[in-house]
């Protein structure tokens, strides 16, 4: 199928400007299609299966490919292969599958292969609670594979944000030539809300820059001033080597100290130097707040309700919601921490992101967690009660 045919087909499938009732998982799939995803390799797992189901139906219709692999190790391997061959690629999974993907994800970070992994979180560890919600992989998404690397991880909190952040994940992965993880959860994945998709030509879609030098000069891992290197695909006439071993600018293994340091620094600096562009924090009623609720994902929904109830009871409380959780928005959150004297961090785990808040806080203020891990969502009432308890 030609490029034009693909575009026409995609336009036919994509219904914009009409209110549609859809699940978070469906919204992820539409986001992927709108972003130009042409390959999905995966293995079905509750609660992420709807993403695979939808892309299995639609990708072949637009000339893309869907493969159900034998497991999640092979899934992420197929995604990396498809990406290196030039297709925007993704997979979707949940906790157990995300664990299996870690080794090859490390390869993708090292070999700088763009791809998108949606992890619809369920209760863990191990097979845990397949049909129940949790936010247990906040730290795994950051440190899941071995070595020193700096992932980009996005956390949506509504069906519309599942759509928006999937597109953003593709854009960031192309721009920074890195896997990007979208951490959804069971509530978001299965929840249905009304969404009106924006017209396709209004969406910002980024595709990685292509090399413009002749093939014999091309360095696949060139260290440029902004640490972003142009990318050629296999089969286009540009020669390069891919390996998980620490490599030089051509991709060949190296043990020269300078090249090792340059490579590892590049992995850090390509996100660190563009943190303003990657960071995305939503503030709610923070202007005059003395109490901060820092919440993300589906927990942010309860927090948004809770701060409104608490405001009526004259608590000066606001909410900070990081949509990009890694790299953690240190500057923005750090600045806001200077204005408040109580922080509440509700999480569907036993305390993961609260550690980041404590790391950033220079003053002696109270930082308390509100943790729930029984497979249900934290309620607004629980957050309001916590505020009352800490500030009687």
């Amino acid at each position, binding site marked *: 199928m030609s490029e034009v045919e693909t575009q026409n087909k995609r336009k036919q499938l994509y219904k914009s400007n009409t*209110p*549609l*009732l859809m699940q978070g998982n469906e919204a992820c799939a539409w986001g992927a299609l709108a972003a130009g995803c042409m390959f999905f390799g995966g293995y079905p797992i*509750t609660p992420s299966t709807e993403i695979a189901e939808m892309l299995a139906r639609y990708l072949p219709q637009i000339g893309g490919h869907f493969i159900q692999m034998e497991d999640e190790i092979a899934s992420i391997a197929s995604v990396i292969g498809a990406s290196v061959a030039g297709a925007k690629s993704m997979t979707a999974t949940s906790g157990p599958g995300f664990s299996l993907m870690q080794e090859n994800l490390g390869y993708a970070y090292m070999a700088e292969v763009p791809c998108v992994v949606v992890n619809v979180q369920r209760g863990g560890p191990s097979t845990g609670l*397949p*049909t129940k919600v949790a936010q247990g992989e906040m730290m795994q998404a950051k440190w899941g594979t071995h070595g020193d690397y700096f992932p980009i991880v996005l956390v949506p909190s509504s069906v519309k944000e599942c759509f928006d952040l999937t597109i953003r994940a593709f854009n960031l992965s192309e721009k920074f030539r890195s896997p990007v993880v979208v951490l959804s959860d069971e*509530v978001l994945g*299965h*929840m*249905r*809300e*009304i969404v009106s998709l924006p017209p396709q030509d209004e969406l910002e879609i980024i595709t990685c820059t292509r090399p413009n030098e002749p093939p014999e000069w091309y360095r696949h891992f060139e260290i440029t001033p902004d640490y972003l290197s142009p990318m050629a695909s296999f089969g286009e006439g540009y020669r390069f080597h891919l390996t998980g071993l620490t490599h030089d600018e051509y991709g060949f293994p190296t043990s020269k100290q300078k090249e090792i340091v340059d490579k590892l620094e590049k992995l850090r600096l390509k996100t660190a130097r563009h943190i303003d562009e990657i960071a995305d924090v939503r503030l709610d009623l923070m202007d005059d707040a003395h109490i901060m609720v820092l919440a993300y994902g*589906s927990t942010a*929904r*309860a927090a*948004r*309700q809770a701060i*409104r*109830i608490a405001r*009526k009871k004259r608590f000066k409380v606001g909410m900070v919601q990081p949509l990009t959780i890694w790299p953690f928005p240190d500057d923005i959150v750090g600045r806001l921490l200077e204005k408040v004297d109580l922080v509440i961090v509700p999480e569907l785990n036993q305390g993961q992101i609260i550690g980041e808040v404590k790391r950033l806080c220079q003053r002696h203020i109270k930082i308390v967690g509100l943790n729930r891990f029984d497979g249900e*969502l934290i*309620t*607004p*009432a629980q957050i*309001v*009660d916590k505020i009352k308890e800490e500030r009687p």
Partner: protein
Amino acid sequence: MQRDIHENHRIEIRLSGSGGQGLVLAGVILAEAMGVYEGKNVAQTQSYGPEARGGASRSDIVISDTEIHYPKTTQLDLLLSLTQESCDQYYRSLKENGILVVDSDKVRQLPSHKAFSLPFIKTAKEQAGTPVVANVVSLSAVAAIMELCPKESLLKAVLMRAPRGTEDKNRTACELGYEMGVEARRKMRERKYAFDH
């Protein structure tokens, strides 16, 4: 504190029963009718076990004129139960003056005399020709009892989601259920039940 949540005209409905009765689909249909055809904000969530049939199953719908922050239900305005087990389990989630609607054959022990006990499954079997559409019968009755939306919007949503070849049965089911609901509401008015929607 709970009352504040409901201040902005937020309606919370739970459809409950056992897995396989089609209640998750019923919730989706109701959400679609209210969200797509009536222009309200809706959030539909569900809870179910790992099994395909049997086990407790429920579908929750939140309907609001304003943005829905918290998508799950906290205090129900209406509970539909198609099994005794789900009725016993969720009755406590109903708020004061909340409405309980049950299937008269499946739920024999009512926790309150103010419940609507209607023969959904029997009606589906005898008048629509199959017990499978009991979900549409009961859903339509719920919509009528709550005066959520006109029958046309509901019917459109039912036919959108009905599997091909079952349109006629589902249309009959929707009409039967809606009538049952309207009738039940009329009776309730006559008896002047305390309830303000």
